[in-house]
């Protein structure tokens, strides 16, 4: 069977991921980012490690030491999650780590709510759905997890979501952004209908779309459309909206082609 020598192999392909790999391990990188407070540190670390039970244990210890449960959402859980999202953005950890951390964080938020009389404040609400006729929802599930991990409240309308249901959810929840995902070219046409009905009702909310067969050219055809190439763009678009970006500015920042 034919084979390369080490030298000839280098002339045919390059493993850029191996060549560019960070020196620091994920655990070492996380350790540098954890808060130093002895009550907060174990909670942030448990979030990074995706250990739900340890998160709740850490929260209970902090509450026993006099911390307000509701403040621990921002002061501990979101701090731990910020470590996770930074390391993901930096390419130090991978998506499954973020998903497991997000699961742990959501358990932590529920625990804090159960132990408090006040409702937590979020950065804003985002309505997420999969296009009508499309049942492929793994992309949407990643988007919702990343949005929640970044402190947004998510109204998840699920898959194969009728156009009118999306419009009704926008009227009811007043989101800062709507997301739509689709795998198939034939179903993404529903995005245009969502757009038209939102515009007709004067609901000019940015409508971030992406997934499988969706492309920038298609999304740019409708007034509210903002194309997100990666699921990880969703929280970045939402952050940009909070910072004041309008649809034109969002397209300028996120339309890469």
């Amino acid at each position, binding site marked *: 069977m034919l084979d390369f020598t080490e030298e000839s192999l280098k002339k045919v392909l390059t*493993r*850029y991921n191996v060549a560019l790999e960070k020196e620091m391990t994920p655990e070492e990188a996380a350790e540098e980012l954890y808060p130093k407070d002895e009550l907060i540190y174990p909670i942030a670390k448990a979030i990074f490690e995706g250990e739900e039970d340890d998160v709740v244990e850490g929260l209970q210890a902090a509450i026993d030491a006099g911390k307000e449960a509701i403040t621990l959402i921002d002061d501990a859980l979101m701090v731990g999650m910020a470590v996770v999202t930074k390391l993901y953005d930096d390419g130090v950890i991978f998506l499954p780590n973020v998903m497991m951390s997000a699961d742990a964080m959501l358990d932590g938020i529920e625990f804090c709510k159960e132990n408090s009389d006040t409702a937590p404040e979020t950065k804003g609400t985002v309505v997420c759905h999969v296009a009508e006729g499309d049942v492929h929802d*793994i992309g949407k599930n990643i988007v919702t997890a990343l949005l929640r991990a970044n402190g947004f409240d998510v109204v998840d309308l699920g898959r194969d979501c009728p156009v009118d249901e999306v419009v009704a959810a926008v009227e009811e929840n007043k989101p800062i952004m709507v997301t739509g995902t689709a795998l198939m070219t*034939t179903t993404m046409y529903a995005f245009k209908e969502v757009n038209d009905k939102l515009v007709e009702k004067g609901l000019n909310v940015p409508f971030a779309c992406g997934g499988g067969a969706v492309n920038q050219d298609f999304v740019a055809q409708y007034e509210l459309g903002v194309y997100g190439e990666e699921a990880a763009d969703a929280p970045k678009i939402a952050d940009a909206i909070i910072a004041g970006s309008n649809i034109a500015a969002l397209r300028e920042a996120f339309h890469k082609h």
Partner: protein
Amino acid sequence: MVANRYTSMAYESADEMSFGKTKHPVKTGLGLEIGAGYTIPEVNYAPRPEAGASKEKLIKEYERITTDIMQRMVQVGFPAVILETEHVQQMSNNPDWGAEVAHAQKTIMEEYHDEYGIKCALRHTIGDIRENRDFLQLRGDKYSVFMEAFEKCAENGADLLSVESMGGKEVFDYAILRNDIAGMLYGIGCLGTLDMDMIWSDIAAVAKKTGTIAAGDTDCAQANTAMFIAGGLLDKNLAHTLAIIARAISAPRSLAAYENGAVGPGKDCGYENVIVKSITGMPMAQEGKTSTCAHSDVMGNLIMQCCDVWSNESVEYHGEFGGTSVQCWGESLAYDCALMNTALETGNEKVLRDMFMLSDRYRDPQGYVLAYDNAYKVGEAIVKDGDNIYLRAKNAAIECCNIVEEGVAGKLAISRFEAGALKDAKAALDALPDDMDQFMDDCLTKYQSEVKVFLPENYGF
């Protein structure tokens, strides 16, 4: 029908395998014989979004697509072609739509065959419509519509029947995002195989009744989901070592189609098909460097190594500088096949096979395991416990880990992250029981509790 499990390999050695040749060629369509010493381009397409607005618009769109492809094939002098129509949901939910599209396409293909003698066949890939908005509904009300879609297409012109079935996907989608090897094994290897057994015995019965070919399935819903999430070298969404474990597990799952009456050619996007071919000796479609219209991959040449049918996966129908998209991609596929067929006719197929394979062998662990010599080893691990759907899937996963480890000891470079994921996966596999009943019971309890959309009744539990 009771599944006829494979417990031995079709080929004496990996080196016996090549593109264009199989142990069990398939005669079909208008003069075609697949896997009988030549490779065949298979053009796959998607209608423009607005074409789905009505049945009439959809049929017209497929007529344009079919004419364009057939015209280009004869214009450039290619001897054979397969057209694959992957149903949009309207065509499977309304079996009459799919049937009318098949009839319209086949009418055009017959005209070209009659006039020019071009050998051709029509594959219809029915959409797996067995679900409602919230749950998979594998055995529910839609099952009869699903089977009716196969039958009506077969009666109206489709020669090859396929599907990309989704059994096990609800558990797999949860597991793959959490590095959960047991969940991947349960979703693909166990739940997926159980569902494959059910649907493929019924599809094979439809094919027998209608005189058509039960062609094969693909683990697109799961192993390709893993491959796409894993993405390119710099993507940070999933370790490529996990993606290839999912692929290895998918081989015994896709094998179940052939254990229940399918005869090939297997579906193009089943990158596991090289493993399946080593076990069955049946013809397989593959896609790679000429399906970049649909998606990127990291083994575009390698995957041609043992194909019998060469596909572009899918392209939206629209205009390009060189004609319509289906004409451009069809022509590229056909030229690829012309090269492979030249190698076959001149006795150089093993040289070309090895050049395809070697150019991507060390690009990524996925290609390394699917290189035909290593794929053959995964096949041997599967048939070793071929009668036990759990053990054979577990064997495939363990053999995959071993192959990557051996590769890393040589010229295969992987990142520390990929190595770490591989080590964790191997440890997780080592911790699994050998007893299938225990594994199934443990998983049923765990995933019923953790995956809200998992309904055990979908699998007859």
